[in-house]
């Protein structure tokens, strides 16, 4: 039994090798991670990000995009490290959603 990520050599069909531009979502998630793992902040190591992603259930791992996996792991890890609480995160999401609905 191997992790959802440890799939080297397994049948997976053809690879999509086409290039694609990073969305602003992708870039923001990337920036967030770089700031969190920077030694000046040291919120956690990228190893912890990998560990969080590897613990996803197969269906979640398969359905999320690359940066969606990162974002979900970042959210879990900032709670795990007591940087933000889950309540603070959900409250902020509601606040921003309300603001966006008004605009």
């Amino acid at each position, binding site marked *: 039994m*191997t992790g959802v990520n440890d799939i*080297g*050599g397994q049948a997976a069909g053809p690879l999509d090798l086409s290039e694609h531009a990073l969305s602003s979502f992708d870039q923001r998630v990337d920036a967030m991670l770089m700031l969190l793992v920077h030694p000046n902040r040291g919120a956690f*190591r990228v*190893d*912890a990000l990998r*560990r969080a992603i590897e613990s996803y259930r197969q269906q979640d791992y398969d359905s999320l995009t690359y940066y969606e996996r990162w974002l979900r792991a970042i959210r879990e890890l900032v709670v*795990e*490290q007591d940087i933000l609480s889950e309540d603070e995160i959900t409250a902020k999401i509601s606040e921003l959603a309300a603001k966006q609905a008004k605009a």
Partner: protein
Amino acid sequence: MPDSTEKYFAGGHVRVKTGAVDHHCRTPDFLKGKEGVVELAVGEYLNPEKLAYHKPGLPKHALYQVRFRQKQIWPKYQGAEGDTLVADIYDHWLEPASTE
């Protein structure tokens, strides 16, 4: 060599240890049990299997680049005979293999 934990040197024959793990681990399953040749002793690094759980990652582990023959890894490999693959493997995942 008190300052180094390096056990293997370039050209040495090694085998990747087998066994399932229930924690974060950088050693890919497809290389477990396979034999290769050390290409390069890269240096010593904090242990990612500890860093993944917010531990300091000490003691450091020696990291090696190990070259494997593709034909040995994939039973149905159809590429050239001499094709190889190089992977980063930490020392605690390696054991000596006899020279063939």
